[in-house]
């Protein structure tokens, strides 16, 4: 173990280290749990949970791009009831060891979000709820919730009233002004903001003349998006007071350090978990080593430490 103090205070949440595994890339922890002891992580954010079970999108759901991947899973999940009955209980042992378990809530209407949030927050099985607002607002004409400040404010403030645990709002990068959205989420009562979700994209097979993904479009993630995510995290950190979880293309300890410097209090590891089953574990270790090499005693010291000309 390292002499570096890795603990961070993420708003109301205390993390043993700033590394969280991100929703959709870690299932409910089962698979990666076969490869290493998950209590080495700051926290685990589980796969999206919706009101009803969802079969998800037709395959192919994954395509590879330069420096990244596209995915269009379509929020396949067993629904909130089954999640509470079968998926979340096995993770409780982790919580006893001080690793946070966070639910990722997705929906297609205000009712979906409030229902799911209330159920999992009342279940007592999660330390916090992360709202994935990158979904189409079916009643609202299919536009993504997360792209309109008004809607974000309304959604977050509504969900806030039924959420007994800390509320994390996860922002979509597909917007003109991420600061504006972040402010709306903050005013709506978010305790923490996480960003970024994936960037809407498309891949085409020129020979078949067809989109590669069954869903036509998908979300771009991985190292390719890191510079965009860093820019957005930095912008938002200067626009709101609440703490941030920086996400986007983190595959090494030094990437995590860059997000902390840019103003994030914790970091989320997504695609890297798919590239290597031990990725998140290695990132915790590499971050410690980086800090030791730099002679830094506590990871908290570098948060927001970016030096501007």
């Amino acid at each position: 173990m390292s002499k570096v103090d890795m603990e961070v205070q993420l708003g109301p949440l205390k993390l043993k280290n700033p590394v969280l595994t991100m929703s959709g890339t870690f299932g409910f922890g089962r698979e990666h749990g076969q490869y290493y002891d998950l209590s080495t992580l700051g926290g685990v954010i589980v796969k999206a949970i919706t009101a009803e079970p969802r079969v998800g999108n037709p395959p192919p759901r994954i395509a590879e791009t330069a420096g990244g991947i596209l995915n269009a899973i379509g929020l396949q999940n067993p629904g909130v009831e089954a999640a509470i009955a079968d998926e979340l209980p096995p993770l409780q042992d982790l919580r006893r060891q001080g690793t946070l378990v966070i639910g990722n809530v997705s929906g297609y209407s205000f009712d979906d979000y409030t229902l799911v949030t209330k159920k999992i927050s009342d279940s007592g099985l999660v330390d916090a709820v992360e709202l994935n607002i990158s979904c189409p607002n079916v009643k609202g004409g299919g536009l993504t919730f997360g792209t309109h400040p008004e809607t974000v404010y309304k959604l977050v403030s509504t969900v806030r009233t039924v959420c007994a645990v800390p509320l994390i709002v996860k922002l979509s990068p597909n917007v003109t002004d991420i600061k504006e959205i972040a402010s709306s989420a903050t005013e709506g009562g978010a305790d923490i903001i996480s960003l970024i979700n994936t960037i809407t994209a498309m891949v085409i097979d020129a020979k078949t003349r067809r989109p590669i993904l069954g869903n036509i479009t998908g979300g771009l993630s991985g190292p390719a998006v890191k510079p965009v995510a860093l820019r957005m995290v930095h912008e938002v950190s200067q626009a709101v007071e609440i703490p941030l979880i920086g996400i986007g293309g983190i595959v090494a300890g030094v990437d995590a350090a860059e997000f902390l410097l840019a103003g994030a209090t914790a970091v989320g590891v997504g695609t890297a978990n798919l590239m290597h089953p031990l990725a998140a574990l290695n990132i915790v270790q590499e971050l410690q080593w980086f800090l030791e090499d730099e002679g830094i005693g506590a990871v908290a010291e570098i948060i927001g430490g970016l030096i501007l000309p």
Partner: protein
Amino acid sequence: MLEEKAIKPLQASIVRNQRLAVDVYHLILAMPEIAVKARPGQFVMLKVAAGLEPILRRPFSVHRLNRETGAVEIIYQKVGKGTAILANRKPGEEIEVLGPLGTGFCVGHARHIGLVGGGMGIAPLLAVAEQAVGEGKEVVIFLGAITKDYLLARTEFSKLGPLFVVTDDGSAGEKAVVSKPLAEYLQGHSLDLLLACGPIPMLKALAAIAEAQRIKAQLSLEQNMACGIGACLGCVVPVKADTPAGFSYKRVCHDGPVFWADEVLFELPAKMEKQGGCGLE
């Protein structure tokens, strides 16, 4: 699967990476941990090159296992970026391997087993054929390919049991699809299990034959993959299930790649063709 602890990704050294046909290569990797643990029908994911190009590992079925030497053999076709990079790797070099992954073929108490392979789908059948014969079972082998050059491991197979081959160009055997010799064979003989791997149309024809003849059949399927360990739900195929949707998706990497023929859905229920929804997770 959940009980047994997974093998962490490890560095295997390349013993051999030799071309067999225009675009087909024979890769032999020295990795004892995997050789002892792997079962026929399982696969491994190879990080064809260090770094970020490509980002994802590539899945390849186990073609042959040698528990004594610790060698795992793979046969792969150069079809794109990743396999092109792999084809350039040299013996002696290290390559990162994740595996063994997925379910294998399940031979159980079957005595007379038909093995049906099409194209690269021939590759995974040798390991299971050798195992079955080793266990004293009888195997009959049906192989189909575009030309005779693609009738992989033909000699090895011929040592294990009756071998029927067909090609698209007639350069070996009859000019036909592989389901034909199988159907003909079944008129005079009986089999109690079919194990197959190959293109979807072939598997579909096979599933039909199996159903008609009431023979249990296992099919090895493919799908684009990311994690390879069941975490991302990226590699799914539709299977019959009485869900509201009338079916459900299973993961090729974790629930497969080998599935029972009678559970596989070769077409999605029309209404599901495009569910739309949240492409952006």
